[in-house]
C-alpha cells in the first residue's frame, strides 16, 4: 500500500501546521533559555558556594567528599593499622563491576578484591557466581554457566544486575582485561588488586591470567587469592614472586548461620545474598557433608609453606580467627605471614568481631563489605578543627559532634530540628539542646532539719503541798 494513499490533503495540512508550531516553540524556548541564563548562572554560583562551604565544614572534620561522592579521610585513616580490602569492589555499586572497582579506588581502599573465572573459550572474566542469575542476568532470560559459555558468542547476553533494584543494567559484566585496564588507569600508587581465582584453572589459563595482570597492571600491583590451594601452587610455579593469599574455607557454623538466615529470609540483606552461592560452591555443603579444613595450625602452616613456598598469606573466617585470635596471630607472626579475615555472615558481624579482638591480636588485613569510612570510623576519628559556617547544612555540620555519620548527611536536616543527629553505628543521638517549651523550676529543700531551739532554763517549782486532815471531822 502506498503511503500517499493513506494520507489525505487534509492530513498533510495538519502535519505542516504541527511542524510550524514546533518551530515556533523551539524559537521561543531558545529565547527563554537566553533570558533564564543569567538566573541559572546565579543558581549555579549559589550551589557552588554551598558546595564549597560544605567542603570546608567537612575538611574541618578531617574529611573531604570525593568526586564520586565518597567520604574520604584527608589524612591516613585511623583504622587500627588494618590493610582494608574492598570485597568485590565498592558496596555502592553492583559487585565485580568496573564502577565498583573505580568507586573502591576512589574511596582509597588499600586493596580491591575481585573474582575471576575462565570461560570455555579461555577468556578470563570477572564473575563471582558459577552461573548467571543473581549477580548478573541475561537479556534472553536464560541461565548460563560461566565456565561453559563462549565469550565471543554469548558474553553479549549477560548484563550486570543492580542488587538493590534487581534490575538488569545496560552494562555487560567486565572481562578481566577490562577490569585490569580500569585498575591500571584509576589506582593510586599503593593500591593493590586482589584477584580471587574461582575456577579450578589449568596451567595454561593461569599463565594467561598472570600474563594479562603483569602486562596491564604491572608486577607488585596485584596478588592472587583462592579457596583452591592447587590454583595458588600452580600460580607459584608460574610467578615465583607474586603474593598469594590462600582462603581457608568458612567455618561450619558460619555456613549454618548463612543457611539459616537465607531460609528465614533475613537474606534480605544483599550482602548476605552475595554469599548465597558459597553454599553451592563449597563441596558437600548441600549434602551437609562439608568438612572444615584448617590451615591455621602448625601442620596447616607447613602445608601452605610446602605448596606456596614464599610470599604468601592466609585469609580466614573471622569466626574461626576470633575464637583463638592471640594463638593464631602468634603462629602467623612466627611464620612471618600476613593474615586476613572475612565473613559470610554480614559486615555487622565482621565489624563487631574485629572490635572485640585485642589490638595486638588483630589480623593484618580485613576484607570488608562496607565503605572505608563506615568501617574505620568505629576505630577513631580525626580531631575536629574549629570552623565557622554561616548558614545551611555546613553550619549544622560544624555544630554537630564528632560521631556524626557523614554518610548520612542527607538525614541531618530531617532530624536537626528535633534535636537529633545521625551518628556512627546506625544510631540517632541527641544534640543536647532543649527542644520543647516545657519548663519546671525545681524546689530544692535543705535536707538537714532545722536546728533545735537553744536550751533554756525552766521553772519547775510547784505549789506548797496540800495540807489535809485525815481524821474524820477534825480537818485543820
Amino acid at each position, binding site marked *: 500500500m502506498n503511503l500517499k494513499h493513506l494520507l489525505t490533503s487534509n492530513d498533510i495540512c495538519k502535519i505542516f501546521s504541527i511542524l510550524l508550531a514546533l518551530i515556533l516553540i523551539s524559537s521561543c524556548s531558545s529565547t527563554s533559555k537566553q533570558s533564564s541564563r543569567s538566573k541559572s548562572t546565579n543558581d549555579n554560583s549559589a550551589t557552588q558556594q554551598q558546595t564549597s562551604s560544605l567542603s570546608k565544614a567537612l575538611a574541618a572534620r578531617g574529611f573531604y567528599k570525593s568526586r564520586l561522592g565518597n567520604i574520604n579521610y584527608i589524612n591516613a585513616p585511623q583504622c587500627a593499622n588494618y590493610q582494608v580490602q574492598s570485597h568485590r569492589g565498592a558496596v555502592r555499586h553492583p559487585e565485580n563491576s568496573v564502577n565498583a572497582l573505580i568507586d573502591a579506588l576512589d574511596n582509597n581502599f588499600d586493596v580491591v578484591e575481585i573474582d575471576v573465572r575462565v570461560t570455555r573459550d579461555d577468556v578470563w572474566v570477572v564473575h563471582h557466581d558459577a552461573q548467571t542469575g543473581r549477580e548478573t542476568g541475561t537479556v534472553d532470560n536464560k541461565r548460563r554457566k560461566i565456565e561453559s559459555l563462549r565469550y565471543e558468542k554469548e558474553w553479549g547476553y549477560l548484563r550486570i544486575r543492580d542488587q538493590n533494584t*534487581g534490575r538488569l543494567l545496560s552494562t555487560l559484566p567486565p572481562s578481566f582485561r577490562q577490569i585490569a585496564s580500569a585498575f591500571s588507569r584509576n589506582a593510586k600508587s599503593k593500591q593493590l588488586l586482589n584477584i580471587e581465582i574461582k575456577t579450578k584453572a589449568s596451567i595454561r589459563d593461569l599463565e594467561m591470567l598472570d600474563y594479562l595482570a603483569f602486562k596491564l597492571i604491572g608486577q607488585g600491583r596485584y596478588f592472587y587469592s583462592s579457596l583452591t590451594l592447587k590454583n595458588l601452587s600452580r600460580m607459584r610455579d608460574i610467578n615465583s614472586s607474586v603474593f598469594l593469599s590462600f582462603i581457608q574455607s568458612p567455618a561450619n557454623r558460619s555456613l549454618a548461620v548463612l543457611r539459616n538466615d537465607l531460609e528465614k529470609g533475613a537474606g534480605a540483606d544483599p550482602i548476605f*545474598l552475595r554469599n548465597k552461592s558459597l553454599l553451592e560452591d563449597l563441596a558437600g555443603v548441600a549434602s551437609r557433608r562439608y568438612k572444615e579444613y584448617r590451615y591455621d595450625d602448625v601442620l596447616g602452616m607447613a602445608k601452605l609453606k610446602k605448596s606456596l613456598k614464599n610470599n604468601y598469606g592466609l585469609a580466614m573466617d573471622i569466626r574461626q580467627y576470633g575464637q583463638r585470635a592471640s594463638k593464631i596471630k602468634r603462629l602467623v607472626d612466627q611464620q612471618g605471614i600476613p593474615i586476613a579475615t572475612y565473613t559470610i555472615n554480614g559486615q555487622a558481624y565482621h565489624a563487631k568481631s574485629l572490635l572485640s579482638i585485642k589490638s595486638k591480636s588483630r589480623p593484618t588485613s580485613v576484607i570488608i563489605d562496607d565503605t572505608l569510612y563506615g568501617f574505620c570510623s568505629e576505630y577513631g576519628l580525626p580531631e575536629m578543627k574549629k570552623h565557622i559556617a554561616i548558614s545551611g547544612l555546613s553550619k549544622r555540620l560544624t555544630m554537630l559532634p564528632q560521631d556524626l555519620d557523614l554518610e548520612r548527611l542527607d538525614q541531618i536536616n530531617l532530624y536537626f530540628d528535633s534535636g537529633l543527629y545521625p551518628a556512627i553505628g*546506625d544510631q540517632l543521638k541527641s544534640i543536647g539542646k532543649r527542644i520543647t517549651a516545657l519548663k519546671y523550676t525545681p524546689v530544692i529543700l535543705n535536707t538537714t532539719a532545722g536546728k533545735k*531551739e537553744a536550751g533554756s532554763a525552766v521553772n519547775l517549782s510547784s505549789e506548797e503541798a496540800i495540807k489535809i486532815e485525815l481524821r474524820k471531822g477534825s480537818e485543820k
Partner: protein
Amino acid sequence: MRLKSTFWRATFLILSAAYLIPEAIFNAQLVSLIGLGTPEESALEQLEIYGRAISGIGVTLLIADLLPAKFYKSTSKGVISLLILAAIIWPTVYFGQKALVENLLIAPSSSQEREYAVLSAVFRDALAINALEVADLEYDAQEMKTSENLTFLALFGGLLYADETLADNLESHKKDIIKQFVQKKAYQDFTQHFQDYSALYDRLSGNYSEYAKGSNKYNQTLADIPNREQGYWKNVEQEVNQGWEKYQQANKTFIARAEARAQKYGPKIYQYHESTNRCSEKYKKYSQRSRKAKCIERLHARYKREIDKAGLGYVEPSYWLIVEDVSGLENTANTLLSGLLTGGLTTVMQGLSLATGGDGGIKDKRYKYTDDPEHYQLKILQHPNFQAQFKSETGYPMGIQTLTTFRTHNVTQQRIRKSLTEKGLTLSKNWKITNRNEFAQSVANKVKADADKQWQQAMKKKGLDLPINLDWDSFQLHPSVQKKIKLQMGDTYVHNIKSDWNQANFKRYVLDPNIEKRTQRYLDMIEDARQHFEDGEKYAEVGKQALRSVIIPPISMSLSLFLICLTLIKLPVKLVEVIKPNWLEGQRKSVTFAIKSLPPILLIILPVMLVGNQFTAQTNSPVNYFLVKVENASNSVFSYALRWTLHAQPVLHPMGLAFENKTNIYQNTKPFIHVLAKLDEQLPQWQLSNNQKKNMKDVIKGITRLTILPNVENTTIRIMNIAPKYQSGMHLKPGAYDIQVSANGYETYREWHQLLAGEQNLEVILH
C-alpha cells in the same frame, strides 16, 4: 517425842539460817519499792514472784521441820521426804498465795473498794512525793528513804484503804491533791521526760532528711522532663529509622524474590505464548478449530501447573501480555509494524484472544509478549497477590520512596502510637509524628504520673501522706506527721507538737498540758465513776491493780516479817537442840510449852512495846486513827499485825538491804523470775475459759490476734501498712496498723490503730 538425828537437826538449822537471807532481802526490797509509791509494773512483778517463791521455800522448811523423826530415819529417806514435801508445799504456797489474794480479795472486790484503792494509792504516792501533807503526821518527805518512812508508806495505802469515809473526808481536796501530785511527779522526772521528748527530734530530723531528699529527687525528675522527652523522642525516631531500614531491606528481598521468579517463570510463560501462537498458526482452518482448542487447552493446563508453583495463586496468561492502545484505523498496519520494530516483542495471535475469551479489545488494543526478564519481574512486582504478601510481611504498601514519606506514613504513626502506649505514653488518635508538642506533653504527664506514683508508694511505705516541698516547720506540723507522732507518743501527744522546742517550750506546750490531762483523768476515774470500776468496765483493771498495790504490801510485809522473826527466834532453840538434843528432857510439859512459846510471844509483844515509831508516838496521830479504823473494819488481830509491822519492820529493813548489797541475790534472780512468771500463768487457767487461756498465751508470746467486726456484710478489709492480706483472727505483732474497711454504698473507713498483744476485736461502723 523422838528427835531427828543430829545430822538432820543440824541441816534444818543451817537451812533455816540460810533461808533467812533471801527472805530478809525480799522484805527489804518490798519496803524499799512500795515505800516510794506505786512501782513500775515490771518491778512489781519481780517483787511479787520472788516473794512468793521465797515464802514457798520458807513454809516448806517450816513444815519439813515439823515432820516426825521417822521421815528422816536415813539420809536418803530424809532427802526423799524433803523433796516430796517441797513438791507439794512449794507450789501450794507459791500458787496459793496468788489464788487466795486474787480469789478472796481482788476478784470479789466491789467497784467502791476499787475506787478507794485508786484513791488510796494516789494519796500514798502524793505523800511520797510531798504533794500532800497530813496534819500531825510526822512523815518527812525529805528523808523518805529512811526505813521508818519507807515502812510507813508501804503500809499507808492499806491504812487509807481501810477508811471507808476517806472519800467523803477528802472530797474538797481531791482535785488539788491529784493536780499537785501529778505535777510534782512530772517535774520530778522532768529531765527524763525532756530526754524522751528529745528522741522525737532525733527521729523526726532523720525522717525529714529522708523526706527532703525524696522531695528533691521528685523535683529533679520533673525538672529533667525536657531531657526525658528528648530521650523518648530519640527512641521514636530511632525506631522509625530502623523501621525504614527494615522496609528498604524488605523491598530488596521482594525485588529479589520477583527477580528469581521472573528468571524461573519468565521463560516458561514466554514458551507458553510461543506454543499457543504455534497452535493458532498450525490449526488455522475453521475445520481445525476443535484441534486448535485442544492444543491450546493442553498448553494452558501445563501453564496452570507451572504458574501455581510461583506462589501468586493462579494468574491469567493475559496478565503477562504487554497491552498498547492503538487507533482502530491503524490497528492492523501498526501491529505488523511494531512486531517488526520491537524485535523481542511478539504480537499475540488472535487465537490467543479467542482462547482467553472474546475478541473485544483486539480492535483497539495491541497485545504482545516478550522474553524480557525485566518485564516479568515488573509484572510480578505489580501483581496484587505479591503486593499483598509484601503488605502482610511489612505492614506497609510497596513503593515508599523516601524516609520522609515513610516517617509520616499512617502505618508508621499507628506503630509509634502502639509502641508508646506500651511504654505508658498516651497520645490522641489523630497524633502524628509532626506534632512534637502533644508528644512532649504526654511525656511530661507520664513522668509526672510516675514520679507521683513513686512518691505515693514511698509515702505509703512510711505510713505517711505528705505533699512535696515541705520545709522543716511545715513538715513537723503536717497532719500526717502529727498523726504519726501521736501514735508514737500515745496519751502524751499534744496538738501541733514540734520536736525542736527547748526545755521551757517543752514544759509549756507538752508537759503542763499533759499534767492537766493526767489530773483530769485521775479525777474522771475517781469522780462519779464508780460504775466504771465494775468488772468488764474501763477502770476495772486499774482498780484491781490499785487494790493489789495497797493491800498486798501490808499483807506480804507482815507475813514475811513474821516468818523471818519466827525463824530467827527459833534459831537459838534449834542450835541448843543440835548440841544438846534432850535439854528439855525431864521438864514438865507446861514448862516445856512455856519455854517453847515464850519466844513467839515475846516476838509479838516486844517490838510494839520497845521499838519506838514516829507515826504512832502520839495517841491521836492519823496513823493511830487509821489503825482504829482497821480494827473496826476487820479485827483487832489485823490491826495489831499492822501496828507490829510498823514497829518491827524498820528494825529489820537495814539487815535485808545489807544482805542484798553483799549477795545481790535479788538482782541475780531477775532472769529466772520471768520464767516463774510464765509458770504463774498456769494458775488463773483454772478459772479461765478456753478463749481466755488462748488470749493469755498470746499475751505472753507477744502476739496480737486481730478480728475486725464491721457492721455490714461484704466488706473489703485491708491493712494498708503490711503486705499480708487480712484474715479474721490473723496473727500480728503488737503495734500500729493502718486499717481500711470498705463496702459498696458506704463511706470507706480508714484509721490507724495501736494494737496490743492478745485477742483484739475491732468493731468498725461504716456509715
